[in-house]
């Protein structure tokens, strides 16, 4: 392994890793928003809204994320959606992970004991009040871990946007291979940096989970 080369190029990789972090944060935020909206839709009392929520989930989970990105970035201009690669990446991946997060949140809400909502309703609380004050706080604790799993997958998933030429970690590795002809070193370095990002995120999730349990 060419350690010297690695030492020479790693500052550029660190910069690229920052882009990966940025992508991860933005797509996670967008995913959480879409997940919250999707989960809310799936509990709506209107059948049409429930259908829309379910359709969103099956559409985005039922097709490859790469196709979704291509459709948005390359196909978008055809229907009047002009996005730069970075924005297309964030929106595409955010919508994609949002579908998974919808199901994660729905699952957590469903697994709160039915008797909790019933007890709240018998005290005279409205549907919204009993959801907000009784069901949701308990569901939040249950969803931290599985959302962490979604986020983990999402961080690795940001590698896909290299296919629409966003200069993040994977794209940078490919670019340096073009000039150095050292794929092992370049992919190895990129892999290590992904591992660092994921390990730190995992620790963060574990911390939040522990804190929620203690409360």
């Amino acid at each position, binding site marked *: 392994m060419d350690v010297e080369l690695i030492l020479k190029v790693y500052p550029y990789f660190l910069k690229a890793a920052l882009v990966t972090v940025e992508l991860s944060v933005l797509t996670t935020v967008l995913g959480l928003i879409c997940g919250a909206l999707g989960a809310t839709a799936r509990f709506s009392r209107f059948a049409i809204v429930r259908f829309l929520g379910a359709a969103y989930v099956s559409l985005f989970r039922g097709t490859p994320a790469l196709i979704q990105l291509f459709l948005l970035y390359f196909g978008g201009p055809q229907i009047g959606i002009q996005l730069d690669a970075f924005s297309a990446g964030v929106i595409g991946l955010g919508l994609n992970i949002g579908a998974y997060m919808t199901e994660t949140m729905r699952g957590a809400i469903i697994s709160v004991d039915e008797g*909790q909502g019933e*007890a709240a309703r018998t005290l*005279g609380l409205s549907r919204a*009040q009993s959801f907000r004050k009784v069901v949701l706080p308990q569901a939040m604790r249950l969803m931290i871990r599985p959302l962490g799993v979604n986020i983990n997958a999402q961080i690795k998933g940001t590698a896909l946007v290299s296919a629409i030429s966003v200069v993040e970690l994977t794209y940078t590795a490919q670019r340096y291979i073009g000039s150095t002809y050292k794929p092992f070193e370049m992919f190895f370095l990129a892999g290590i940096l992904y591992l660092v990002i994921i390990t730190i995120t995992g620790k963060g999730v574990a911390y939040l989970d522990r804190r929620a349990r203690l409360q």
Partner: protein
Amino acid sequence: MTQTHPFVEIRHAQKSYGKLEVLKDISLTVERGQIVAIIGPSGSGKSTLLRAINDLDPLTAGEVWLDGLQVNKALPHRQYENHINEMRQQIGMVFQHFNLFPHLTVRENVTMAPKLLKTISDKEADTLAEEQLDHVGMLERIDYYPSQLSGGQKQRVAIARALAMKPKLMLFDEATSALDPELVEEVNLVMKKLAEEHMTMIIVTHEMDFAASVCDRVIFMDKGLVVEEGPPELVFKNPTQERTQNFLRKHLEGAK
């Protein structure tokens, strides 16, 4: 005060899940201050009937009235929501599995509904919570979480939580069935205390001794019908119906 209507009235209650008829045309009344036990084998529909009183399990047909107001009135969604929430504030319910809110302290469990619904000021709610918890002997655990309490203690807190809404009527759905035998008595004592204060109560129970000693009236249900009803000394000592006799015989054998 003269009353022209019964305090609680159930008129021709029917409930079915598809082809399964859980309640078949049940009518009964409960007067203010009365304590009524509903007994019967499992699957007889007694819990379903109790849960229909506050519309937790809506009836397929029939009416439930409380103090001159129909509980299960057919209304457009939003109006129904407001109506049923107001009705439920007047109907306390205690569950077999307590259903305390695990993320809240004992105090917060009791004050949440009064504070959220603004039935009284926050300060009054705190005072009321202390009173109610004192009443059920749980004041010293006011800052505990439900997970730190025994089953009997949880159920006493659940009763205090229901009482904090100042209900006109209390429903007990097998309140002691999930408790270890040695913890049943403390909950029974609280219920007896309520009985002495003339709270109107409808109690679904498997405990015949408790029903006999506390209740004014016993209703025996089987297969979705009221088979027999009357004062406990009659229903327990001299049941007229064969099904009641069989049930009581089996139950007494099981208890021995």
